[in-house]
């Protein structure tokens, strides 16, 4: 499972991997390619009023091994969660609440006056919240 892309451009802000896996690169690719779908979905709902927009994008696309979920904040920061296909304990609602938690944690990071938007996130509390969330879910 991994997360977080992008400000205005699709720039990687942070990628966190549970299971320090041998194949971290593959996750990077998965997250990166999922941005295609995110962009398409965002542009499709972009015409709706911003306050009515649902931030949670749902399942982006299924692959054989992973399920990729997406979430876009109003300032177009993208969160992506990748879950193992075999993991059936995480339903849509759990994923949604994970994104909410992630969003609020990310908002805290942004509120830090010393954080420069666009830089890679280096925050202990953010890290601990994210890793706690992932340990819990796995």
């Amino acid at each position: 499972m991994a997360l977080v892309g992008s400000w205005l451009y699709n720039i990687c802000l942070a990628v966190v991997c549970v299971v320090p896996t041998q194949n971290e690169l593959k996750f990077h690719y998965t997250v990166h390619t999922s941005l295609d779908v995110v962009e398409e979905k965002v542009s499709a709902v972009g015409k709706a009023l911003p306050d009515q927009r649902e931030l949670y994008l749902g399942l982006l696309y299924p692959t054989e091994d992973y399920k990729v979920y997406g979430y876009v904040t109003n300032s177009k920061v993208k969160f992506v969660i990748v879950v193992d296909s075999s993991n059936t304990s995480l339903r849509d609602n759990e994923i949604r609440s994970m994104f909410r938690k992630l969003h609020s944690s990310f908002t805290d990071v942004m509120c830090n006056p010393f954080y420069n938007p666009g830089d890679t996130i280096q925050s202990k509390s953010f890290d601990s919240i994210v890793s706690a969330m992932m340990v819990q879910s796995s």
Partner: protein
Amino acid sequence: MSPTQWDLPPELCCRPMAFVALTGLDVVYNAVHRAIWDAFCANRRADRVPISFKVLPGDHEYPKCRTKRTSYEWYIPKGILKTGWMNKHLNLVPALVVLFYELDWDDAQWKEKQSECATKVEIVRTSLQGRNTKVAVVLIQKKTPLPPGEDVVASERAAALCNACDLSGKSLFVLPHTDHLVGYIIRLENAFYEHAQTYYYNEIRRVKSHKEFLNKTTHQLLFVRHQFKTGFFSELKQDTQNALKHYRSAYGLIHELRAHETNMLEIKTLAGFINYKICRLCFQHNTPLDAIAQFRKHIDLCKKKLGSGDLAFEHTAWMSKQFQSFGDLFDEAIKLGLTAIQTQNPGFYYQQAACYAQERKQQASQFCSHEPNVTYPLPDPLETLSGVLDFYGQRAWRQGHQSIDPPDPDREKQGVLALQMKERSVQHSELIIALLSNAVAQFKKYKCPRMKSHLMVQMGEEYFHAKEYTKALKLLDYVMCDYRTERWWSLLTSILGTALKCSYLTGHVKDYITYSMELVGRASTLREDQKSRIEKNLIRVLMNEVPEEEPNCDAGSVRAAQGLWGERLTLAAGNEFTIEVQDCVPFIQCKARFLSPSFHVDEPVQLHVYLRADCPHPVRFAKLGVSLSNQEYNQYCLVEEACKVKDILEPSSQENMCLVPGKTRKYCFKFVAKTEDVGRKIEITHVDLMLGVESGRCVYLNWRGGGGDAASAHEALQASRSFKRRTRLPGQQLEWDTVSVQASTMVISRVPRISVQLRHEPPALTNEMYCMTITIQSEEDTVARDVCLTAGLKPGQDANLTQTTHVTLDSSEGCDDAHPALLTDIVVGDLQPGQKMEKKLYVRCVNTGSRIFLFHVSYAISSTVEGKDIACKCHKVRDETVTIDTVVPFEVAVKFVSTKFEHLERVYVDVPFLLMVDILSASPWPVHLVDSQIQLASNMAAVDLPQSQVAAVVLQTGECASECFSLKCPPVQNGTSTVAAGHYLISWKRCVHPLTCQPLLIIVTVPVVLPLSHPLPPRTSELPSFGRVRESLPVWYHIENRTGMVQEVDVSVEPSDAFMFSGLKQVRMRILPGSVQEMVYNFYPLMAGYQNLPLLNVSVLRLPSIPSQLLQRFLPTRIFIKVRPPLHQHEPFLTLCYVMHYIHTGC
């Protein structure tokens, strides 16, 4: 590529169509038969019935039918589906055999022919022994048949023929060989189609009838087989709904089979076939979601059915094929009109197929890497007697065997070994690349650029594994920039790593250097030790040595690469490379800036170049050069050191040329701009940094503009946003982020030290010579040479202003249209330090309005900059511009009035009138009217000598001067309606102007008059200007008849209180044409003062249109009456009487 065992058989993938055999046609030699055959097979569009026709000889041997089994009690099936079965029913066993026979109803040898035909039918029947195949006969006839029932012979003979051939009447057809062949053929084939439908219907029933004999324990395979066959026959019958139903139940049954290692492959193979059929039919029924759901179910069920561990690659190969064939089906459906979406398109299936193919490759390398002494087993366990398998998905060495354990363990081992050896020869990379490129094509279509890039990376990597390094390099290079712009460094680093290996193995020096530079630089996420290794290699390459090999490369390729690099060493030419850095993120950053956005020409232009290295080890460079838009300056912006090859590593004593990691180095350049470049921009076109040596191998890093690479724009943005405190670094160190690029500067002229002052009195008056005094004073320390003044109307204003403004330096001559609006480069000469000089400029503005004037002084001066003498030009623009308003000096109004100062609309011929001129001063300055003059036109005459009455008058602002001239209009020729009156001229000047100044002239055109002739103008003559009380005042009235007729005129005089008079009070008279009637009245004034004369009423009887008022207007109405001078004693009384009378009457 030859078909592999994993490819689906073509008979499975095709669309099943009813098979009808045509016999008795000689398509080679008989033209008629040929035409019939062509009509059958040509132009088979969708609207024709789905039949596959085949021409067979009459005695063709059809596949033998095995004897029907009556009991399944002891029967143990050997497999699920025979390999030949589908082909048999598609191409070998027809649903209907049609015999073509040439026979007319009235054939002479009817009997013989009939029996021949019957024989032929019999032959066909014999060879179809045991089959349910129908037989039909078509008689090819030359004549057009009569309508049914009319031809008695025909119906009789038809019945006879049917009888002889043992045919039902429905199976006998007549094909007249006439014009409408295609129409007949279509009717024929529809009839054939019906027969075929019946045949397949019967076949389905036959297969179904077996069911009751089967039991669940031993005949499980048959359940599947029968369902599959039923489905297939239904498809042949074109009943796809039922076909789908049967295939679905076959699919359900196949997963109920007991699966074990020996039959796993067979089960999967058949499951794959049935799944393919189901998906295909679902797409055909336009229910793609069903197809996808079926496929998902299929994969989920089969994913775990791994089969033998030693042959694991078989499972992945099969999985890969499943995804690929589903992708093909999906793609085909899209081509037929299905719409796919971004998240559900064939690309995903191709991608997954590639994924499994990669896994297969991995497993193959794991299981098939035998020792070299292991040889292919003999006899070949994969060989079969017939060359093909009997049943789909079985092992060649134990066909038909259905027990759980293999019958012969040794043969089993040999068979597995043979399969593994075969797998080794498979070109896995080729398969993977083909699948990936299919997926790329799909993702491109469905807007997934990142997915596409990802797949292209995979393709590149696969090419790398396949040792096609050049192709790999091409692909990787293509996608690299996408990842670079998205700043996904971890991915970029991985791609660069592969690309570096490829470039090493192919000996591409330039690519090797480029990738190394990027991998060593700040965008790379490699560890320090990896970076260090790469940098050392990079330095080796720069020193023209062979780099160390990259890790994880194929040993054979490495050897070849070392050879290639060795050759590169000896090459004399082609060792100079230029790398454009804006497309990558190299390990050296560069920023160049001019210290100021503009420099005066008399000060040196300063340029700083900042360099910084991000690599782990210090790096030396050989040359740093800045190229500017004017290349003459390039020589001043160059740092060079003739360094030897060997000391490229150790920091030399002259630290200038060495970049220490993490430290910013600054290089300052200074040059004096050329005077020609004044007003021009100097731009940095590029910055070049040379690494290596010119004699050996050298690399130019080329930064376009003032530096910056693929990543620096974003970094600059981040730096500008950053809240980080900028700590001052010790010494001369600079924070890199604080340096901003300034890639261009302007060379501007030297600041002039000269003062220009202007004296004038606005506003200007129209047409006057407006004087402006310009004072130029030099404040320079040396002589200002070639002082030039440009003065006049500022260009770029309204074009009309240029036409109506004229300037001159000379006041004595007039200033007319020939003079320009702007005087350029008036030579003033040299100015000594402190010298002052005055110039007068005269401006004439023809019309009013505000104008912007420009005063511009330029001069040359010599100056010394940086020990260089330069001649610089200076320009001084006096407050940029002066705006001057122009106003008219006065307004002149001209009007005509009668002699009684009444307004005149028209003028009567020969009747005097007045021209009245009012001059109203609008000038803010007093204006001196020098003279005025009237210039009359030829057909206008002055009554007396006109004289100016306003000459030498000075008008203050708002004052008005008036004068009038008495004029008369002589008779005009008939036809001319208007008459030009002439011009009125005023000459004037400003009061303050010296006398020498020429007066200016204003010409006013007097309006045209409309003279009318009067038929009977009455007039008085010799009326004195005044009268005296009680003194007789004789008045003569003349009435002239200018008409051509005798006019009768009534004249009457109205009495007046102020006058007594004698004369005709009322008279009627006739006046002859052309003659004048004189009437004399003797008035006797009674009162003093302005008095109305007794009114003379004249009415012309013939011309009642002329009112008497019109006639009266020519006559004086008033006269001033003076008091009589006191001559006698009694005069005072009289005077008193007058006064009293005056008071009494109130006049």
